[in-house]
């Protein structure tokens, strides 16, 4: 079997995506930007769900927190520098994940799912009910962050193609970072914990510390996505840390195929584009009004019949093809 091609595939995809602004107009570039941001978000969750065996149902908390961090750090009508605001937002998320992680990691199974949800809801209501972040109305980020080196502007994020490239670069970086991390002894230990936590403990691994590290890293990466999402539309409101958002990203991870990383990217494409297509009145006319019905049924079908997600489907067909060639 020749799987060398698989090593180059990510680079090929990233390269093709980088060329996209040369051929397409603004709207679809924005849509693709959204897909890439969701891909980062989903990969961060995949680290927890697919590799550490922790099903978080409150991952939007970190996504939203980074968005709010940017909105609150940015003076209303002045640009902030990306160089410090992005690390600061991500740092805040990491810190929050570290603190909540210490608490939520005391629980397991259903309780873990519910407790992560509870912490996200807590944050939701803090932003929803108090004036800190503009209450339920949210706040606007009127000016996008700057990327300057000295006096030289490296990229102008007001231009959507520049922003698109930034997001693409960060998506690629997240992918490569996670691939590296998961291939390390740390990553192997995480998977070991997912497969058999008890054994890991008996082998002498401080399981809690590994889980906490994974939880923190995951929160930080979700922060990158949240920061970018806030920049893209220049607006944050409590909706971005609602449980619907947590549900959506979980859906992306599973749809794509958890525990594969690239599955999260596939899932983000499928999910965002599916939403876009189903709600397109040009294609579905009046039925588009009820697009969520089709989405709901689709989600249920995935849960029932596609537990390995689209990545699993790909692998299966890949295996089939491989089997056929060896048969000949």
């Amino acid at each position: 079997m020749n799987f060398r091609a698989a090593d180059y595939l990510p680079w090929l995809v990233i390269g093709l995506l980088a060329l996209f602004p040369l051929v397409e107009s603004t709207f679809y570039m924005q849509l693709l930007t959204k897909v890439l941001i969701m891909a980062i978000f989903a990969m961060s969750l995949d680290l927890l769900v697919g590799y550490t065996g922790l099903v978080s149902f409150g991952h939007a908390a970190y996504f939203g927190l980074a968005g709010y961090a940017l909105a609150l750090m940015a003076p209303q009508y002045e640009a902030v520098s990306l160089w410090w605001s992005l690390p600061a937002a991500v740092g805040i998320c990491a810190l929050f994940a570290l603190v909540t992680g210490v608490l939520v990691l005391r629980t397991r199974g259903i309780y873990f799912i519910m407790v992560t949800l509870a912490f996200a809801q807590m944050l939701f209501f803090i932003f929803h009910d108090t004036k800190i972040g503009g209450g339920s109305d949210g706040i606007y980020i009127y000016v996008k962050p700057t990327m300057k080196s000295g006096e030289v502007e490296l990229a102008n994020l007001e231009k959507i193609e520049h922003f698109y490239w930034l997001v693409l670069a960060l998506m690629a970086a997240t992918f490569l970072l996670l691939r590296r991390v998961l291939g390390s002894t740390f990553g192997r230990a995480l998977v070991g914990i997912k497969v058999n936590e008890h054994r890991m403990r008996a082998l002498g691994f401080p399981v809690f510390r590994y889980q906490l590290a994974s939880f923190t890293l995951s929160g930080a990466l979700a922060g990158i996505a949240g920061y970018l999402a806030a920049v893209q539309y220049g607006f944050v409101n409590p909706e971005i840390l609602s449980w619907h958002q947590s549900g959506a990203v979980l859906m992306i991870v599973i749809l794509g195929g958890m525990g594969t990383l690239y599955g999260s990217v596939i899932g983000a494409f499928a999910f965002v584009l599916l939403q876009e297509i189903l709600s397109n009145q040009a294609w579905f006319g009046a039925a588009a009004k009820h697009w969520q019905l089709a989405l709901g049924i689709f989600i249920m079908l995935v849960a029932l019949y596609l537990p390995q997600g689209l990545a699993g489907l790909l692998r299966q067909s890949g295996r089939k093809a491989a089997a056929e060639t060896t048969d000949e």
Partner: protein
Amino acid sequence: MHKNQKASYDRREFLRGSAAIAGTTVAGVLLPTGQVFGQQAKLKVGLMLPYTGTYTQLGIAITNGFKLAVEERGGKLGGREIEYFTVDDESNPAKAPENVSKLVQRDKVDVVIGTVHSGVVMGMAKVLKESGTIWINPNGGAGAMTGAACAPNFFRTSFSNWQSTHALGKVLKAKGIKTAVFITHKYAAGEEMMEGFKEGFEKEGGKLVKELYLPFPQVEFQALLTEIASIKPEAVVCFFAGGAAIKFLKDYQAAGLKGKIPLFGSGFLTDGVLDAVGDAAEGVETTLHYADGLDTKKDKAFRLAYAKTFKLQPDVYAVQGYDAGQLLAAGLDAVKGNIGDKAGVIKAMEAAKIDSPRGPWTLSKSHNPVQDMYLRKVVGKENKVQGVAWKALADPARGCKA
């Protein structure tokens, strides 16, 4: 633009055309089909309104009102036929920038009409300020749109939140009421309505003894009603709309407060909910820029035409949508349909005097209606007009520098 890209764009545009037709069928109007590629290009109007969710009926009423105004002009504005592009905003502020981008960037509309939800309005403001597209807001009363965030291309044909409660101060004073409690949901619209009332009431020497807030969209009022009973104010003033309004009116009655402490509110409290609340709203007094039984010639004609076309009774939202059409017509007529002359359109719209079913109104410097606020009282299933509470009330437009 590349050549092949142009071709694909045209196909999309064509698809959009059929979408618009499908959309209008839903709304109950049938536009003449065909002629997608006319001699003079059609004017592209983007409707960004809620077509699903709690505010669906409002979105439909506004759409109907707007289309009625266009139909009355032979289906044309400034001599140009109209092509509609619709986006359902789902009343979701988080999706607002994205949704409005669909109209502005993907569909390249000339004018944007929308929307109901104040939060979504602010999301639109963000994008439309950058694009400079002419925007007429037929409902959402967010003060900042014609305040701190105002822009030359922003217009509103409805009200500002501040306006809808400001006149109540005078009303209460006239009834000899000196203390009041204000209760609403905790969000910008609620707070702006509270501010509007407080300012008006205190100017008249009244005292707002307590502001009560409930997280949006909760509707468990019992604890706060008990609180009101223990404070014993001379009046209760509130802002709730839709489902929350129904629930509040019923709970207020059930708690025995109705008849003991008079209830006032912004007009949305009793608009479109009277069938559902039964007698719980009877006698409640509100202020709004529209009312039942205005009995003007314009209003009668409008109501008749609307009922005939859509087999529905019009409401304040239909009026606001209708006036959005009228305002746009005034702007386009002045430049003979040449939307490219944006400055000309804006100038004509600024100067327009709209002959509205609610009574004539003009625009303030910040492009918000300067209009009469009516005092209405619920009698049976109607918001009967009691008189004008404030003649030609203008929003203070705080923070607007444009």
